[in-house]
């Protein structure tokens, strides 16, 4: 059981959240770097996203005069909700107090809150691109959320708990098991993660082509520190999904005690896992072409079918009579 009054636990949770914020730009730069290598380019330095963020924070934030307070507040809300969602995920160690007070459904809720304000901000100024981006984002998320929840329910049914920390411990304790349900849930969550973080078959993060952009269309009106917060939140979201996938399905290496040695192992393990995930993402983005917006429902339908099959195979093969 988690000790809520343990100050080391809270300090570690805080440290882990800060690591999330600090590491997210590095992960994005890593993916970019691998992608450039695969396309025979040199690619920007690994520190480039930090420099971009630093530059944007130093600039003046320009506002459209039609902008309402919602537009002004949205970057802080989006960044805050994403960061809180990230703090719920066990990255270095299990049984941290933040993981114990919020379960996976709260996590999905925080992400939905961030997305809601992002879409509101896109529509606020009244430009056509912002509204278009918001409507597309809501279409994608409305289809992705059932798939994500179905995959999450498959995991929680196996572990008999909706708490991420308990799910990870359950996977750790049961040793090497080939679970068909986890395989399908992993595939379904991978597709959802690609759609939710706006990576290639669904949205292209590297382009400002008006007709295809989704995420970029919503933050088109932002500048200065607001833009920096929005970009940073998107980077944290990518890392959040990466850590979620890596630690639930391959939790080996994560610290189950709060000693310095096991925490160091946990840090090295998650860095290696994220680096590998980044390579997989970069390769898949190089191989796959962006699909038309009208094909996205079919893509997410596949994600939902995979998650549903995960649930079915859990019931039929793993629990059944």
């Amino acid at each position, binding site marked *: 059981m988690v000790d809520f009054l343990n100050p080391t636990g809270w300090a570690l949770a805080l440290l882990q959240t800060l690591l999330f914020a600090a590491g997210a730009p590095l992960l994005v730069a890593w993916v970019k770097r691998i992608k450039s290598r695969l396309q025979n380019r040199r690619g920007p330095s690994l520190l480039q996203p930090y420099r971009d963020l630093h530059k944007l924070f130093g600039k003046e934030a320009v506002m459209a005069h039609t902008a309402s307070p919602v537009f002004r507040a949205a970057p802080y809300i989006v960044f805050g909700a994403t960061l809180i969602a990230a703090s719920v995920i066990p990255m270095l160690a299990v049984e941290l107090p933040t993981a114990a007070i919020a379960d996976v459904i709260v996590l999905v809720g925080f992400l939905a809150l961030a997305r809601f304000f992002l879409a509101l901000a896109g529509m606020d100024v009244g430009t056509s691109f912002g509204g278009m981006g918001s409507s597309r984002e809501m279409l994608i998320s409305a289809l992705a959320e059932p798939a994500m929840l179905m995959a999450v329910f498959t995991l929680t049914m196996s572990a008999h708990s909706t708490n991420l920390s308990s799910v990870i411990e359950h996977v750790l304790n*049961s*040793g*090497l*098991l*080939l*679970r*068909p*349900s986890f*395989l*399908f849930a992993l595939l379904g969550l991978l597709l959802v993660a690609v759609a939710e973080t706006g990576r290639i078959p669904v949205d292209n993060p590297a382009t400002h082509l008006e007709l295809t952009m989704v995420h970029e269309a919503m933050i088109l009106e932002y500048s200065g520190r607001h833009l920096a917060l929005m970009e940073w939140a998107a980077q944290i979201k990518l890392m959040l999904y990466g850590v979620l996938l890596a630690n639930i399905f391959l939790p080996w290496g994560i610290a189950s005690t709060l000693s310095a040695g096991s925490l160091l192992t946990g840090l090295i393990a998650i860095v290696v896992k994220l680096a590998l995930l980044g390579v997989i993402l970069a390769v898949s983005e190089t191989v796959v072409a962006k699909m038309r917006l009208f094909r996205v429902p*079919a893509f997410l*339908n596949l994600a939902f*079918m*995979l998650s*549903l*099959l995960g649930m*079915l*195979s859990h*019931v*039929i*093969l*793993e*629990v*059944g*009579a």
Partner: protein
Amino acid sequence: MNLMHLSLLEQTILVLGALTLFLSFALLPQARLTTMVHLFAWQGGLLALLTAVVASVGGNHHLYVSALLTLALKALLIPWMLHRLIRRLQLERHQERLDRQALVMMTGAALVIFSYWVVLPVARLELANTRNVVGLSLGIIQLGMLLMVVRRQAVAQVIGFMSVENGLFLAAVAATSGMPLVVELGIAFDVLVAAVLFGVFFFHIRESIDSLDVDLLTRLSEAEQEKLASESEGEA
């Protein structure tokens, strides 16, 4: 049943069975015929692998023969024949979109749940450790039938028919470690002959109605033709 009581190889059987079911789902909304044939070939390959794993778990050596037979027939020969047919019928670029794709997929999921419910009493019989695969195989059979119902393209319907046979084979292998070799050989050659006959039929259908869309077959009755003729006369 607790997964932890199964050996790693038995867990592999479950994973392979679930993947076979997934391929049946993937066949359902697939628009391109050549991709359907590829998926069908992968299903045959998975089935062969599963048979080999069952053989090594139970020590049934005759199952290795049927694994090889499955690999040769369902993963290589029949897909190759279907490919050749599609090329000769010039259907490589043919696409058929399902009208209500989401509805069809949900029906498929409902059929799998239904077949699980039907199989529950059978699964309690303690046939083997992997008896739950029977539920999956009944699901694969139902999905094959659903494929034949919702598709209008004759080649797609034949692939549905073949995947029904895959489901039956999976049930036999997983529940009772395979049928006697004679029966298995008989079924394998039946399927092969069916594939050849279907090929001949495709050409006949196309010759008579200039298409492989079987919905057009309903319009071949003479009464309707006379009606059409009288209508056109009336218009004239």
